[in-house]
């Protein structure tokens, strides 16, 4: 079944009135008629209107969305599932929210990076028009600032890993607490620094915010030992790290060896990229029991993609293991989680087809 946005918070009185009107609209809902006037009035699911698209770098753009109902807020660092129609087909993606929760205009923003060959990011980047209606799913993620805010902070980001951290920086700045924050951000070139201008302005205005831009095209990749130069007291700081897997791994080891692991907060989640970076297996065949379709995966393709290529109609949502829309019951066989490389599978288990590839022959009840 196709995925929906989250139900918005609507007053009880309004719900009661709508329920009464249902006797007149059954089997449709009053919403179905109200949406003729304004699709944002849906009480079934939260929707939003795209207000503006602001280009940040040659391959990243910020999309500002005004939710139909008052934004219930998020914790800076969390991500949002967003549904949008591209070429007639509704797609769901998860993006880090880059706005802080208290924007006075009530808007929220995401800042997708253009993924060549992708479906949604090129659309958001090149084709979407202000006024487009999107569906807003749940806000999730545990990569968030502790409460109360630690006195000393270190942010390390690379590429589009800046996105959850930007929301944190904006929230801290709005609260007037940008007092002792070190930020190391890596990008290939200066013009590829997402939010570059805003970051530099923040640094100029707030002496307590020290920004190190590391241009990897010139200076090379950040290696863990350089931390001691950039931020000698890194061990004492509550650290938030978001970037590609290689960087996470290298720095993670450093904290494990020389630091206090509990102080390091890592975001593994990388929006709108391939399914994952876990080890790959040999693949295998997939028997879809209810459609009697057979498919084959080379170990790279998740069950969902292999099935779709073989002509099976399968449910899907986020396609990245978050929303559980795509689940099917495993009848037999083993699968590999493409995000972690872990091989698992017990008969009867509910499997997410979007992040698992077959490891040998599998049968799935879909």
């Amino acid at each position, binding site marked *: 079944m196709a995925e929906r946005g989250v139900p918005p918070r609507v007053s009880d009185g309004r719900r009661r009135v709508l329920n009464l009107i249902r006797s007149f609209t059954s089997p449709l809902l009053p919403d179905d008629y109200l949406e003729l006037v304004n699709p944002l009035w849906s009480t079934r699911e939260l929707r939003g209107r795209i207000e503006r698209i602001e280009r940040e770098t040659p391959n990243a753009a910020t999309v500002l969305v005004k939710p139909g109902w008052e934004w219930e807020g998020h914790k800076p660092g969390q991500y949002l599932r967003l549904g949008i129609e591209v070429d*007639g087909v509704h797609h769901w993606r998860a993006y880090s929210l880059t706005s802080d929760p208290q924007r006075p205009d009530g808007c929220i923003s995401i800042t997708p990076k253009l993924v060549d060959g992708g479906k949604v990011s090129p659309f958001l980047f090149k084709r979407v028009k202000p006024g487009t209606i999107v569906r807003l799913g749940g806000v999730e993620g545990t990569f968030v600032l502790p409460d109360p805010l630690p006195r000393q902070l270190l942010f390390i980001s690379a590429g589009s890993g800046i996105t959850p951290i930007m929301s944190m920086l904006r929230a801290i700045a709005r609260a007037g607490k940008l007092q002792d924050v070190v930020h190391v951000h890596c990008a290939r070139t200066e013009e590829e620094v997402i939010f570059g201008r805003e970051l530099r302005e923040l640094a100029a205005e707030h002496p307590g915010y020290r920004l190190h831009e590391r241009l990897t095209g010139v200076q090379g990749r950040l290696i863990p030992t350089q931390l001691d130069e950039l931020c000698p007291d890194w061990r004492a700081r509550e650290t938030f790290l978001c970037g590609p897997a290689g960087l996470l791994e290298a720095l993670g080891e450093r904290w494990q060896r020389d630091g206090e692991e509990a102080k390091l907060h890592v975001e593994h989640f990388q929006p709108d990229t391939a399914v994952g970076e876990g080890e790959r297996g040999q693949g295998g065949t997939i028997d879809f029991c209810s459609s009697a379709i057979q498919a084959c995966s080379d170990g790279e393709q998740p069950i969902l993609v292999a099935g779709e290529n073989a002509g099976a109609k399968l449910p899907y949502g986020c396609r990245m293991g978050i929303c559980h829309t795509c689940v099917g019951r495993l009848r037999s066989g083993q699968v590999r989680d493409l995000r972690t490389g872990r091989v698992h599978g017990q008969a009867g288990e509910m499997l997410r087809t979007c992040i698992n590839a077959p490891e040998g022959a599998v049968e799935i009840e879909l």
Partner: protein
Amino acid sequence: MSATHSPPTAKRLNEIEGPPPRTAPNHRPSPRAVQVGFEDEPDNPLARLTPEQIEELGREFDALHDEVFAELGDRDSRYIRSTIKLHRQLVLAARAMLLGSRYRPLWLGGTAALSVAKILENMEIGHNVMHGQWDWMNDPDINSQNWDWDTASPADAWRHSHNYEHHTFTNIRGKDRDLGYEIMRIDPHQKWHPVYLLQPLYNLVLMGFFEWGVALHDLNFDAIRAGEKSKGKVNRELKAIGVKARKQVVKDYIAFPLLSAGIAALTSGRRGSSSSSARSSFSSTLAADFTANIVRNVWAYSIIFCGHFPDQTYTFSQAEVEDESRGGWYVRQLLGSANIDGGPLFHLLAGNLSFQVEHHLYPDMPSSRYAEIAPRVRDICRRYELPYNTGPLSKQLGTVHRTILRLAFPGGKVRPKPGPYRAERI
């Protein structure tokens, strides 16, 4: 029978509409399948085609399906959204007019608009959405699993009896319960029984109250009689019909008439006249809703009965379709269905079931595409010397009613068939 050709293992048809799976490697029609049956229809085109031709034809129909599905996009999404929007606007206009239903022109306008809205909703939107024709959009609001329609039959029950049973076993005698809907003798192969003498009469009743007929038909009385359905299941299904029926009745025969009455009472000036105008508004709105439901029922009945019961169509014995291949499945759909000629507006109101042939070949294809692929289907028919059943509504419906009258009495013969399609070339 050749000793070297071992008959394929019969694969059970799965609970999906559509032809047997493409990936099944050994799906070839058994030589037996082309030898048995056809006693009274020696010209049955299925008997004339070689297994190789049937296989090739299956590939051609598959390719056409894939071609259309690769193209689906914005244009199709805009089409279904605007059709849904049109329906809702029509409903609003109709209901607004019917608030003043005690005035004759408003009654007429409102009833006409409501009838068209209900027809559009049942045929082009409900039937097709519930077939999954728009599921490729992945939109939760236009999805076969979430949809419910403005008619007495609950969505789940209908999806099973229609999508699965009827579309899988189309025109197989003894398996397709839509062949006469368990109450009519529509095919001379069906054994006569004196109760059929009444069928011209209850045919008329069914026409007017078709939605209730469909709801009860979904219960599957044959299965209940044969004890194949547990009592609990029957009770659950009856309850679902009850819940759905109550909502339909409350809306059309209580809520809207009361609303009209209330408005009439408020707007008429003098005390004495307000209660009488409320009463007359109540009954005129009720009459309008009733009329719209009857109009929709007669229309749906007429289009649907023209789908498989005109003279041109073939029915099949179970032996004839044993071990049916994918190509054979397509041929059966082609032979068992009939189109109705008409213009774009007619096709829209018919829910494109006037392209019944195309619909049965591709039940999951968006209905708006049927008109576009029809010339290609006709071309396949021409090349394989297969019939392409079609005709004007008057002719198709005329032959259906003639059959219903004739077969009320014992005997009756299979009507002559039109033979291969030969006309345009593309």
